[in-house]
């Protein structure tokens, strides 16, 4: 029967082998089960020398399917079930063979396409020396800057909303201390009948550091409800009003902002 020796490796699975046998016998796929194809297939698979574990299972499963179909044709047909859920195994295999054949043929056409497309060449990317990557900022006008600054000053005037933990270093308590400034503010408020403007707290040429520490002192006093700060209108001046001014002694065991920082 096996007049020629061919390797099973040249077939891409049992359907491929079946198709090969069908074509060799010049049969139509539909006639596969009335032909010798089944026995040819079985003989081929069982005599194949290079049937290893990797490829064996698919081929053997197909062999079992073919034998099952063959045995069905020899036995009287069982009475038909009313619901035909299961596709007839013979029909299913014919369907599979047809479908596989269609895509196998299509794959040969694809192979031609690829061969043709392989005459098309591309080139490697150029080496292009690039300047360092830049971020382009959009927007940003002097007016925007101005408003941002006004907003900051506004916030500075509001004062209370500050997250004081952010203030970390460069507050040099050697020169100005929060405690000292608090005393100064209390004194000023006493002189001015309990009310004054924020800017009255400084001399005109007060160093920035003093303003900063003064500011911190104000915050401490606000926190401890010694004073209240209010503003007649948005962007207006800040008024400081004494609530209950305390004695410096009252905070003997309390750490002020600058003291917390310098301890760290």
């Amino acid at each position, binding site marked *: 029967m096996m007049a020629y020796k061919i390797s099973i490796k040249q077939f891409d699975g049992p359907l*491929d082998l079946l198709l090969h046998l069908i074509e060799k016998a010049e049969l139509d796929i539909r006639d596969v089960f009335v032909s010798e194809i089944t026995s040819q297939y079985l003989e081929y698979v069982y005599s194949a020398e290079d049937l290893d574990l990797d490829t064996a299972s698919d081929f053997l499963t197909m062999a079992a399917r073919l034998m099952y179909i063959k045995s069905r044709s020899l036995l009287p047909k069982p009475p038909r079930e009313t619901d035909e859920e299961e596709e007839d195994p013979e029909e299913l295999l014919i369907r*599979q063979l047809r479908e596989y054949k269609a895509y196998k043929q299509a794959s040969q056409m694809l*192979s031609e396409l690829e061969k043709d497309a392989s005459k098309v*060449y591309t080139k490697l*990317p150029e080496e292009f020396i690039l300047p360092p990557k830049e971020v382009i900022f959009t927007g940003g006008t002097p007016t925007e800057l101005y408003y941002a600054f006004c907003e900051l000053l506004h916030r500075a005037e509001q004062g209370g909303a500050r997250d004081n933990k952010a203030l970390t270093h460069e507050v040099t308590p050697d020169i100005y201390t929060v405690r000292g400034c608090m005393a100064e503010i209390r004194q000023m408020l006493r002189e001015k009948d309990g009310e004054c403007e924020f800017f009255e707290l400084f001399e005109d040429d007060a160093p920035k550091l003093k303003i900063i520490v003064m500011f911190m002192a104000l915050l401490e006093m606000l926190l401890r409800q010694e004073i209240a700060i209010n503003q007649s209108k948005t962007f207006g001046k800040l008024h400081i009003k004494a609530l209950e001014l305390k004695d410096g002694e009252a905070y003997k065991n309390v750490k002020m902002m600058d003291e917390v920082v310098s301890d760290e």
Partner: protein
Amino acid sequence: MNNTELLNALECVLFVSGEPVLIEELCKLFDVTMLEMTSMLSQASKLYEEQDRGVLLHITEESVQLVSNKKYSKYVEELLQPTQSRTFSQALLETLTIVAYRQPITRAEIDFIRGVRSEYSVSQLMKQGFIKECGRKDIVGKPQLLCTTDKFLRKFGLNTLSDLPNYDLLSDPNRLSLPDDDEKELIDTV
């Protein structure tokens, strides 16, 4: 920037890039809409072809690449002796074909059509970038759905999937009800 200038600039960036450039990126670069860009590209592509230029535009839905005109491939081969990329094995080609026509498709469906397990072929094709995952099928186990890539189109010289031979027939999942002979005729006429 007028049309001619834009086409020249396009030639320049595609030349430098060498690789496929996403059409989306070109839109951003030249500040034109997708519609304007695709119409411009197809116009340019036609122009190149008409002039039998040494380079042509290979346009897919996603990207565009400057490629050599295969009409002159014999000169390229003679002068540069480029290494031919290896061709696909039958198993790879069959698997790729099934994914191409039937995407999105699960591995089990491929296995069924081919009658063998396609695990290795699928992993090889994925590794080489010809197919990719494109979601999960909403059935038990949520299997991976596979589809082809832009690289696949380029490799086979296609602009779009429907350029595949017999696409309508073979992409129809119900096509199998066709009688053998009809099918045979259809395929044989390709």
